[in-house]
């Protein structure tokens, strides 16, 4: 009898757990590119956001676009401890982190001096690691919190002139996997999304060093937009992925299929 009742009443619509209502989420790098797409999508799914970026003007423009109310912005560079502390203090507790801030700079190894390597490490590894450490130390994460980081296919694909960048992203990936193992018992998850070549201001800033048209031609599924990355980040932030931690989600249109990673 109970089986038949269960059959008549659809108990759910299948996608409820992808909704982010009631969840307070930090989105870094939210002024542009992937971070902006993630912020807009998270808000449209009901999350309350604290968004961060370096450009006041662009960050405000994103804030104005967000669905819902109660969102905040914290302007500043995450390599600076003050910015990180301000971000952490912006809300009592967090249910999620979407770390989308990053910088790409290319240099062949013979030109990649210590300054270049340190700069890549500072922005792409130490900043997210330090923010994470402080979030945990200050006990700012709710049970069930999900920490999602945007790393890069480059950490494994290692194309020419990417040594500094690739190594910095690889450092972050190992950090995340360790974090995930440690925090599993606290029901705090940590995962990462590795995008391929995405049409964003960050890649545009590399100018002629990257031929985006060529990369799109090489990508089996064609050009990738920030709006292709955001849903993957959202899946990992949401209760729909409650069992997923320490995992990588590669969104590269199939570019890495032919690579021995």
């Amino acid at each position, binding site marked *: 009898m109970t089986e038949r009742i269960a059959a008549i009443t659809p108990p759910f*619509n299948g*996608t*409820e757990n992808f909704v982010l209502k009631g969840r307070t989420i930090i989105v870094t790098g939210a002024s542009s590119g992937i971070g902006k797409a993630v912020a807009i999508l998270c808000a449209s799914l009901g999350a309350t956001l604290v968004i961060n970026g370096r450009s006041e003007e662009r960050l405000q423009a994103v804030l104005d676009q967000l669905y819902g109310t109660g969102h905040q912005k914290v302007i500043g560079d995450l390599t600076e401890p003050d910015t990180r502390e301000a971000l952490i203090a912006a809300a009592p507790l967090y249910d999620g982190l979407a770390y989308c801030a990053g910088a790409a700079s290319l240099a062949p190894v013979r030109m990649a001096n210590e300054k270049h390597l340190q700069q890549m490490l500072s922005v792409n590894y130490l900043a997210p690691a330090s923010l994470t450490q402080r979030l945990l130390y200050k006990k700012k994460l709710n049970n069930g919190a999900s920490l999602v980081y945007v790393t890069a296919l480059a950490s494994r694909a290692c194309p020419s002139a990417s040594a500094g960048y690739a190594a910095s992203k690889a450092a972050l990936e190992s950090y995340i996997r360790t974090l995930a193992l440690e925090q599993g018992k606290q029901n705090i998850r940590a995962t990462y999304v590795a995008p391929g070549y995405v049409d964003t201001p960050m890649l545009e800033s590399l100018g002629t060093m990257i031929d985006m048209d060529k990369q799109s031609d090489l990508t089996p599924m064609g050009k990738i937009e920030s709006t292709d990355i955001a*849903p993957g980040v959202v899946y990992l932030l949401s209760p*729909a992925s409650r069992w997923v*931690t320490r995992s990588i989600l590669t969104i590269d249109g*199939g570019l890495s*299929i032919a690579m021995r990673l």
Partner: protein
Amino acid sequence: MIDQAITPEIVAANLFGLAGKTILVTGASKGLGQQTAKYLAAAGAMLVICGRDQQRLEQTLTSLAGIGHRSIIAELTDMDKLMNVAVECGKIDGVVHCAGIRGLSPMKLVSEAHLSEVMATNYISPVMLTRHLLAKQLIVNGGSIIFMSSVAALSGTVGVGPYAGSKAALIGVMRPMALELARRKIRVNTLCPALVETTLTTEDRPWFDEISKRYPLGVGQPEDIAQACLYLLSDASRAVTGTVFAMDGGLEYA
């Protein structure tokens, strides 16, 4: 400027839902396949479910939300009949290959018969069924194919050799297939779950309870797999192909 009428629920349903899509799920009589079929149907998909056990398949069918679902009773290792299964299935937007069996044997004792049986069910059948669907142009452009691999393909456990080999084979075949289908925007991906609670895995309850302790987030539930399938089948994962996605509750040692 922002349309407040588009609620979070509507956004989620549009992005991760499957309204208007037809999905084939094999192994749908029980376990992962059954729960996956339920979630996909709840998310708006029309299902074509496939299994060997007629009674259980019918139960699954009646439990699916929505209308228009169909079932195909078939033994998927019967190569002569597999093309018929594909034709009976008809045009689909996606497929989730959940049908699979265990393959337990110490490697110094394994029989060729067992090795072949496990390979036939877990690798040859899903690959050949996909082949037939493609040959008959039954997977639409923009479609999505999911092979159910396993954490066993990525890490080792004593006694699981035949199973591990068959699940690793799916990862290997996925890559060329994904490249071949990319121009038609058909994605191919593999899921690698660790231990999920089903009738199959809880047969030996003491073993199951003992293994469960290793999982920081607990063992998986079929719903976890189902929701990963929603992501991979929906337009949310348009740019995701050729990937291995592991879901293992934070397990350190398999």
